[in-house]
């Protein structure tokens, strides 16, 4: 499926299309369902590039997941991951998720390289809750999200999605943390697995709140 006009990005399943500059907070307690929805948002169409920060998945697994959402999307993506080994120019690794300085620089470098190829840019973090669980001080996560992730979306006029596993132990009240984070993102999508291969997405954005049933 090709992308929309220069003002929007195609995303299937009622989440999109998303306007340029849109950031999405994706929450839920089923990581398989989260991953499926995440891939649909971040998978780049023809003429686009994406950068994914993965905490628990190897680079090739991330690319396969993106290919499952959109044919050839993996080849148009760069992955920065804390799992597995680096490979070529588009799979980089970080040794320590709590090293936000190094991770931020690697992420910025990959984003800049992608934006040299095209001005159509998508990005995502899967899973933000894993990073939060590695940090002693959650304020560092806010700095990272604001200074690196959300800034990259804003400057590039791209779109981005940050996935949070609400069943994870992040050392803080999850509901309150999600409430806080939601305000920094343009859209919130809560993913609830409702059966084998099925989920309900509750989407909250400037247009209000709506529920969509999807296959995952």
């Amino acid at each position, binding site marked *: 499926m090709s992308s929309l006009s220069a003002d929007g990005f195609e995303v299937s399943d009622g989440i999109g299309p998303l306007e340029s500059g849109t950031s999405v907070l994706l929450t839920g307690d089923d990581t398989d369902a989260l991953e499926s929805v995440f891939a649909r948002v971040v998978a780049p169409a023809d003429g686009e590039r994406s950068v994914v920060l993965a905490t628990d998945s190897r680079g090739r697994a991330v690319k396969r997941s993106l290919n499952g959402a959109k044919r050839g999307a993996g080849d148009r993506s760069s992955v920065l991951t804390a799992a597995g080994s680096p490979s070529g120019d588009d799979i980089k690794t970080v040794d320590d998720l709590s*090293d936000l300085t190094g991770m931020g620089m690697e992420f910025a470098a990959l984003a800049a390289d992608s934006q040299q190829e095209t001005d159509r840019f998508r990005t995502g973090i899967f899973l933000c809750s894993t990073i939060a669980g590695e940090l002693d001080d959650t304020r560092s996560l806010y700095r990272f999200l604001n200074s690196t992730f959300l800034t990259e979306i804003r400057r590039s006029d791209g779109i981005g999605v940050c996935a949070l596993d609400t069943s994870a132990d992040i050392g*803080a009240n999850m509901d309150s943390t999600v409430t806080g984070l939601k305000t920094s993102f343009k859209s919130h999508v809560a993913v609830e697995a409702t059966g084998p291969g099925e989920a309900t997405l509750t989407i909250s954005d400037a247009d209000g709140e709506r529920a969509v049933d999807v296959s995952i």
Partner: protein
Amino acid sequence: MARSVLCVDTADRIDDVATAVEDDESLTARTATSVEAARETLEAEPIVCVVTGYDLPDGTGLEVVGAIRETAPQTPCVLFTDVPPAEIDTASFEESIVEYLNRDLPDAHDRLGFIANDVIDYSAQASFIRPDDEDERLETLAQYDVDALPIEESFERLTDLIASHFDAAVSFIGLIEEDEENFLACHGGDLDTLTREDTICTHSMLQEDVMVVEDILQDARFAENEQLQNLGIRSYAGANMTASNGQVIGQVCLLDHEPRGYDAEEQAELEDFADTAMEILELRQTVRDAERTEVAQ
């Protein structure tokens, strides 16, 4: 007025960096060619942004970042280098967010000024979560001329009553401004202002209902916060002061020096006190506006 940017790099590169910065008319470059010279400049001059290379004669660019974090932690830093991120030693700087710009990119020279201005504009808000409609919220807050309103005594009486009612060590009323919380009244403590990064109210204001933190030491958002530790705070409850247009401009809060919870009835009472504080502020502002209109006529 031009923004003063400290450029730090080796002697053979510094002119190129300074030129790239000053190609943007809103920026003025100050230069240093070592970590030590950068330290001296940071102590002597008001600097709003640092652009530094990585390899310096007496250290690294991250040491320059460390130096400014000691004196002016909100000042943004850009690492402008051809050294790949994987070769940069971040061991002592793991939670410092630094903007990275590869100087080998074809448009690196042109991007530097844009990025310097961008990080200057947004750095103050980078360290805390903020509402998506923050600009509208600040416009609402600006409608209340708190410095000119006779509210201090009213709010001090109110915080005395609140602390007494809940048998809490500290009660305060604070307005949440762009970069800091401004405490208008406080019973049981000596609070003036705190940067938003250091306040629990920054989080509480984002919730519709009362936010309770029963034990701050058990919450990763606040457990490492030195400001809260220095104040001896262990528990928190905060209710929103909500203006008539729905924007949250401040908080009415309770602090205690021991872990503590608040039941539903107590939380509802705290919300009532917050509504009362808001009404006092609204009434005072209404009276002042009426007086001004009368004088103008």
